[in-house]
């Protein structure tokens, strides 16, 4: 088999599984549509807030801590993506590849230390 054919036949089940996953959820929803009762009632449509009526839309203010962690995550996750190919090849390439990665991780480690010192890792 050609390499591309191999790749294709490897990932066909992934496509099938993603379609099957959607069909599973849809069929469950259809089953519920057929079996479950439905009634239009005003009170049922209100947002749950322990008995009180909500004052405003909920999707307004969110703590900015979440965004800080989001940014930190993107930096370190991109780093993890770089480590993936390195993991498979560095032994063959030898010490140079290893020390390059050490430098890369050290720079990001300095970044983490800076974020730590600045209090970005402290939740409040």
């Amino acid at each position, binding site marked *: *088999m050609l390499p591309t*054919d191999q790749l294709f*036949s*490897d*990932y*066909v*089940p*992934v*496509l099938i*599984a*993603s379609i*099957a*996953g*959607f069909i*599973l*959820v849809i069929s*469950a*929803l259809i*089953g*519920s549509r057929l*079996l*479950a009762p439905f*009634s239009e009632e005003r009170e049922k*449509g*209100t*947002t*749950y*807030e*322990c008995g009180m009526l*909500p004052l405003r*839309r909920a*999707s307004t203010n*969110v*703590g900015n801590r*979440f965004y800080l*962690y*989001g940014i*930190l*995550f993107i930096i370190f*996750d991109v780093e*993890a993506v770089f*480590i*993936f190919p390195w*993991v498979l*090849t*560095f*032994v063959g390439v*030898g*010490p140079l*590849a*290893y020390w390059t*990665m*050490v430098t890369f*991780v050290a720079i990001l*480690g300095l970044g983490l230390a800076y974020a730590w010192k*600045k209090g970005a*890792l*402290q*939740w*409040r």
Partner: protein
Amino acid sequence: MSTEIFGFDGVNVWVDGLVRVLLIVGFMTVVVMGLIYGERKILARFQQRLGPTRTGPVGLLQSVADALKLVGKEDLRPRNADAWTFELAPYLVFVPVFLGFVIVPFVLDWQVRILELGLLYFVAVTGINIVGWIMAGWGSDNRYAMIGGMRAAAQGISYELPLVLSLLAVAMVVEVPSDSATGESLRGSLNLNEIIAAQAEIPNLVWQPLVLIVFFIAALAELNRTPFDIPVGESEVVGGPFVEYSGIRWSMFFLAEYAALLIMSLIFAAVFLGGWAWPAGLFQDDPWPRWAQALLVTGKAGLFIFMVFWVRASVPRLRIDQLMSFTWKILLPLMFAQVLINGLVLVYDWPEIVLTVTGLVGVLVLVMAVDRAVRHPRPRPAPATQLEGEAAS
């Protein structure tokens, strides 16, 4: 293009894929129902209760009864909810988890597909369901759901990093025979079958004790299990992103949660305990029949699942600042150190016992850090009224 399944040769790739995926659907549904029953029973025993006893013999049909009840329950959508995000969230939570089953090695030469980049695929696909959690939280237009969704995102992405790095640390040390004639071997593989085959002599838990513990902790957090269940904590955010979901849509989230637990346990068994391979090279030349291998995998995965239930019964919930400090200040630096030490040992061809020793030292550091945090807990930090360096207005 054709392939082989159950001894039938020359089966079309699409048919083959379809058959395998359908088998997985059945397997997943049955096992998840069993897991729900098992969790209720085991948790009940921990708390000196009986658990479900009424439906069927010793309550065995409890999950079936629950499923029927949920299908027949009215499926509400709040009037203020954002229709698209609210309706699409269950798909985005469930489908990524289901996709994870494609690479899970059940027994020797039987899984949906052996992917060369199996572990990369696993972390890439299962990471998507965080988006589903945020969508559920945002779309519900409910404050509890919103906070729960944001917490789920913050926790999910923070613990994703130790999880990915722990899988990488294991992938580094895997020995792959490249040339059977000369006995030469390469290091490093993301292919789960190669990872299991490399553990025929000694499972990875011997070489990487620290990684095993960090993986377990990160997996608990990814699964939103106690003590990391702040996104869904009933006493804080009354169920988190799922507050407004009812009936069948809610059960999709539930199904996804247990399916994720099942996948994590199977990955754990494959990566650290050697999957279908016996330890110490037993039966290496004469593999056991598939049912026996399946029993072995079930035992290893069951160990993980039992530990998850056990932790749930024993440990209280963490506070969010403790939770975030733990991953960013302890787990992440430890995992970076482990990856670099693994690299050092492999590049300079040091004896492998160094891996075990450094791993155990890491375990000691982790235990001491946790012990210190438990003995001297910090008070909850005061809420920040203004950013540092910013003048009060």
